[in-house]
């Protein structure tokens, strides 16, 4: 069976912390930090490596701050 | 003494409108005056029964004003520069049909969509008649939140006295800032309406009609002559201004609205520096207080006109002094506000150091 390995890169200075991606992620990969960026917003970070690269977060992200990668790994 | 409150200029204007017994308000959202419609939407109708309606556009709003004013009601609208431009057609009709109404322009920087920051760039439009044809608005320029209140009542009185539209020419800063205001008591709404108003044909009188179309030029000239005579009368009787330190003044600062407030601080700084500076603040921009300028022109070395535009009122100041003294202009445009220090610096540059 093939397994999808995903990874995302977040442009934290453009993130406004709206958190829509957190709800959109089926794998609960994302969370809001306590830190704030230069614009004064708390931003999102990844908190685990469960990402499958489904890109739901990037689709819902209004500010296009998320870049998504996905690698299909064939398991034995 | 009336009720004292801390209020935003736009809200104070709206409160004054309710208390002045206004019958109807029609408006459309535009920054920086949207608070007027918002404030009235809260409970104006519950308080006095007045009509408050958000129109679909400024074009619609001014024509709603036309309709309601022609019924003899106390009506008012407010907007900001681009919206006021849209109202010009309606205003020309209203002026021609001699309908009393009050409108407020909370001016923002232009031209075009411009900016939402305070400006005085609509002086020409307001004072010289922004729509087509030979007409004038009575134009009042408040320089404090208190005057936003006081001028509402005054405007209704003037509008009804002369059957002419009155404009309160404020700016974004006066609309948005909060100051202490004393409010007048609630006035009753009118129950009797003028003879000319279209309230349904009276049984024993002629029916009335309101129009600005007079296809025969002879008739249209008559209307124009009548309007011009009215404007002359207004110029004779309704001039209002404020003046400070004219007695010993060697120089005059002049400006209106917010500009005049800033000039007052500049005058204080200049007086501390030892210059004998006075201040003239026109309150009515039409009718323009020509006489006071003419009188000081003989005594002073120069007048510095300060405006938040490219120099519009300065033309009226120059016409008033007829070349008898030097008139200079300093100002900022596009929503920028001159600081008192800037005015002082430019005053010294122009008049003291002589680098014109």
């Amino acid at each position, binding site marked *: 069976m093939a397994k999808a390995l995903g990874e995302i*890169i977040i442009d934290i200075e453009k993130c406004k912390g*709206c958190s829509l991606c957190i709800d*959109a992620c089926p794998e609960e990969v994302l969370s809001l930090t306590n830190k704030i960026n230069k614009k004064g917003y708390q931003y999102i970070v990844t908190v685990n490596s469960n990402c499958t690269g489904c890109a739901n977060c990037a689709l819902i992200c209004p500010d*296009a701050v998320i870049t998504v990668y996905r690698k299909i790994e064939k398991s034995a | 003494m009336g009720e004292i409150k801390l209020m935003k200029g736009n809200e104070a204007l709206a409160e004054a409108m309710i208390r002045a017994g206004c019958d109807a308000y029609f408006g459309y959202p535009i920054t920086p005056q949207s608070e007027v419609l918002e404030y009235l939407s809260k409970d104006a109708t519950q308080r006095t029964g007045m009509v408050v309606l958000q129109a679909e556009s400024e074009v619609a709003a001014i024509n709603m004003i036309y309709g309601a004013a022609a019924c003899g009601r106390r009506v008012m609208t407010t907007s900001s520069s*681009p919206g006021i431009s849209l109202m010009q057609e309606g205003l020309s009709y209203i002026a021609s049909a001699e309908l009393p109404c009050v409108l407020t322009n909370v001016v923002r920087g232009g031209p075009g969509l411009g900016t939402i920051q305070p400006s005085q760039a609509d002086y020409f439009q307001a004072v010289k008649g922004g729509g087509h044809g030979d007409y004038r608005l009575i134009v009042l320029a408040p320089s404090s939140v208190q005057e936003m209140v006081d001028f509402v009542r005054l405007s209704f009185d003037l509008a009804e006295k002369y059957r002419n539209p009155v404009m309160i020419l404020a700016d974004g800063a006066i609309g948005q800032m909060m100051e202490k205001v004393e409010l007048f008591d609630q006035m009753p709404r009118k129950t009797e309406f003028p003879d000319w108003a279209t309230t349904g044909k009276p049984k024993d009188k002629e029916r009335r009609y309101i129009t600005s179309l007079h296809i025969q030029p002879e008739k249209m000239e008559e209307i124009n002559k009548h309007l011009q005579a009215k404007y002359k009368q207004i110029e004779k009787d309704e001039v209002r201004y404020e003046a400070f330190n004219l007695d010993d003044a060697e120089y005059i600062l002049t400006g209106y609205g917010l500009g005049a407030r800033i000039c007052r601080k500049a005058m204080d700084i200049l007086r501390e520096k030892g210059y004998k500076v006075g201040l003239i603040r026109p309150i009515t921009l039409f009718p323009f207080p020509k006489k006071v300028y003419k009188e000081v022109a003989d005594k002073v070395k120069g007048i510095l006109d300060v405006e938040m535009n490219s120099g519009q009122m300065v033309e009226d100041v120059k016409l008033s002094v007829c070349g008898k003294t030097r008139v200079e202009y300093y100002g900022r445009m596009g929503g920028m506000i001159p600081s008192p220090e800037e005015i002082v610096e430019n005053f010294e540059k122009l008049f003291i150091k002589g680098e014109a």
Partner: protein
Amino acid sequence: MSNNIETAKFRPEICTDENLVYRKPSTLLPEPFHYCPGCGHSTVHKIFMEVVEEMGIENEIIGVAPVGCSVFAYHYMGVDMQQAAHGRACAVATGIKRVQPDKYVFSYQGDGDLAAIGTGETIHAANRGENILVIFINNGIYGMTSGQMAPTTLEGMVSTTSPHGRDVKTQGYPLKMSEFIAPLPGVAYVTRQSVHKPANVRKAKKALRQALEYQKQGLGFCLVEIVTNCPSNWRMTPAQANQYIEEKMLAFYKLGDIKVPEVK
């Protein structure tokens, strides 16, 4: 890579070009959106620019920005654009299209702009069958001027000029512009979409692409209405606002195609 970017912590080996699934479209300019957190305007800008990038038409399209929150659309959409007076976008777009019929032309308008002050221009452009795309953002409120009632505000919905909830007796009924415009013979395609869920984002993007394809075929006026949120003026979090779309807005503004061109 800039320090400002949170790099992948766990598996950087996945982040290679061949594994790229989604990145910001090149047609979207680097300027950060001025929109509030969670605002649907940003989402629509983003997907529309994706469509432009995918169709490879960034040099053949001219857009019109309205008055309203999206007045700054030209700061973000990396294509030639004009800014129009309040409500006049369809007239401006007509001017552009008539002198350059071989270019794609779109206007991007909010509900205040399109359905209040600009109703006349919108209806007449539609009725003339102007071969343009109108993207109509319906969030039931005036955003830029901070939360006044719009023509599309739902019955009972609170705004700063309907603080007791919209009273249809004195303030009129919410206006379904799409249904209103669809019957006009010059109109080719009318659809209503939303961007409050990932699946809806995909569909909305498809509809925008479809509309541009129709324009290419010269079929006439296309209107893509997108029901979206205004978290700031609805006084909600972005998540609550999207929930409100699901429960309230979509109950009145039904999603789906309202008119599609007849297949010849």
